[in-house]
């Protein structure tokens, strides 16, 4: 089997050049989806019978929670690829995914708290899913703190990759045990396996928002990775050429 494509993918230069081509289209799609989803969800979807307008925060809360968890697995997978194939790009992806994931986890917690006040009468309730989210945030903090604790970049990469993997093994156990303990919680809003319990008019904009968040996540990750690549490869000729080119363009514009 021909594996050259796989190793080519590990090259930062290849990543930078090929994402340059797709970046405008990706940004456009993300923007359109986000604007459409937000407008539809916040402006046009019907009001909830019990919760009124406050339910609309799920258009941010649910996608953010989805991506927070998916982002952790993506980070751990990138770390595993880095450990196994010693691929530098993979470590860069892992490093950049951590703060984005942590931010999304925080967003999920924050929107959950904002929604909790009118619904439960308190900003913080020890609900199973919220508690799991909080522990997920702690797991992200651990990976971030470990990454930056090492002076040696490689050691930091390897350490945080292993920690992310250990976390991945633990996440299902944590989620299940938290679920088991806090029996007082709402049933999940969306079950992928069964029919949605929400009205389609409310559900469709949520799907758009989830899709928009996936695109947004990809965009944010790619942008962060590109910056990190430029930082790390700043001494190579291709980055120097790029900088020269950019400064020449600036001069030309003046």
């Amino acid at each position, binding site marked *: 089997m021909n594996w050259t494509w796989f190793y080519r993918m590990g090259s930062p230069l290849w990543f930078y050049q090929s994402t340059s081509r797709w970046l405008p289209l990706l940004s456009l799609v993300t923007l359109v989806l986000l604007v459409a989803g937000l407008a539809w969800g916040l402006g046009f979807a019907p009001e909830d019978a019990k919760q009124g307008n406050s339910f609309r925060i799920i258009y941010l809360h649910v996608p953010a929670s989805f991506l927070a968890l998916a982002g952790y697995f993506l980070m751990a997978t990138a770390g595993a690829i880095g450990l196994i194939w010693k691929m530098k790009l993979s470590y860069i992806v892992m490093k950049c995914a951590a703060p984005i994931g942590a931010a999304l986890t925080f967003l999920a917690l924050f929107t959950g708290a904002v929604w909790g006040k009118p619904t439960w009468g308190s900003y913080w309730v020890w609900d199973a899913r919220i508690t799991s989210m909080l522990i997920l945030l702690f797991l992200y903090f651990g990976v971030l703190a470990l990454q930056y604790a090492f002076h*040696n*970049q*490689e050691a930091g990469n390897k350490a945080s990759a292993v920690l992310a993997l250990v976390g991945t093994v633990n996440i299902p156990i944590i989620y299940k045990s938290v679920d088991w303990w806090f029996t007082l919680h709402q049933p999940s809003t969306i079950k992928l396996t069964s029919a949605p319990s929400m009205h389609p008019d409310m559900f469709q904009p949520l799907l758009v928002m989830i899709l928009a968040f996936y695109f947004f996540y990809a965009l944010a990750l790619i942008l962060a990775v590109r910056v990190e690549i430029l930082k*790390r490869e700043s001494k190579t000729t291709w980055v120097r050429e790029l900088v020269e080119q950019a400064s020449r363009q600036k001069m030309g514009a003046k």
Partner: protein
Amino acid sequence: MVNSSLLTVNDLRFERDDIPVINGACLTLNVGEILQIEGPNGSGKTTLLRILTTALQPSGGEILYRGQILSECRFDYLSNILFLGHQSALKLTLTAEENLSWTTSELPGSVSIMDALEQVGLRGYSDVPCHKLSEGQQRRVALARLLVTNAEVWFLDEPFSALDKQGVQFVEQCMERHVKGGGAVMLTTHQPIGMEPVRRYSLVGSSVGGGF
């Protein structure tokens, strides 16, 4: 002997955070040879020893032990080497004897631990906790390992540091006896060694820093 080369290193490379530390080192270590690794501070002497003792993974190149690739004879190789580093691997709360007896299992044909301690001039100190010994004495306890091992290849990282004249002489005698008995030694030191035959290998500092 057809193949007297114990250790062959070809084009060994090591990078730390993309900065080359060892750039294509090639060397051989033959039976009955003392090889002194030279080079300025930061030229990768300790790193080289750590790669050769498999504590570090090289970024490239190959290491052959008796003509076999290292990863294929790892157990055999590691059973036949001895490494003494900057740190003496002594537990200060343990006595000299306890320290030696757990790092080296008593082997047939090697000197007993008590004899070894006597030879390094620590007779009567065998049941004293190591934190009560002076730094030089602690170093001697660590060096006593040279007497109780039957490893074939010795890697000694700065073995003469913190040693008095007598201690230096002792190490030199150990190396001489070991080499005559069919072993080999690779060591790093800044001190000139007062014995023959010593072959030297010079590690050039990485090109990034530039020489002065």
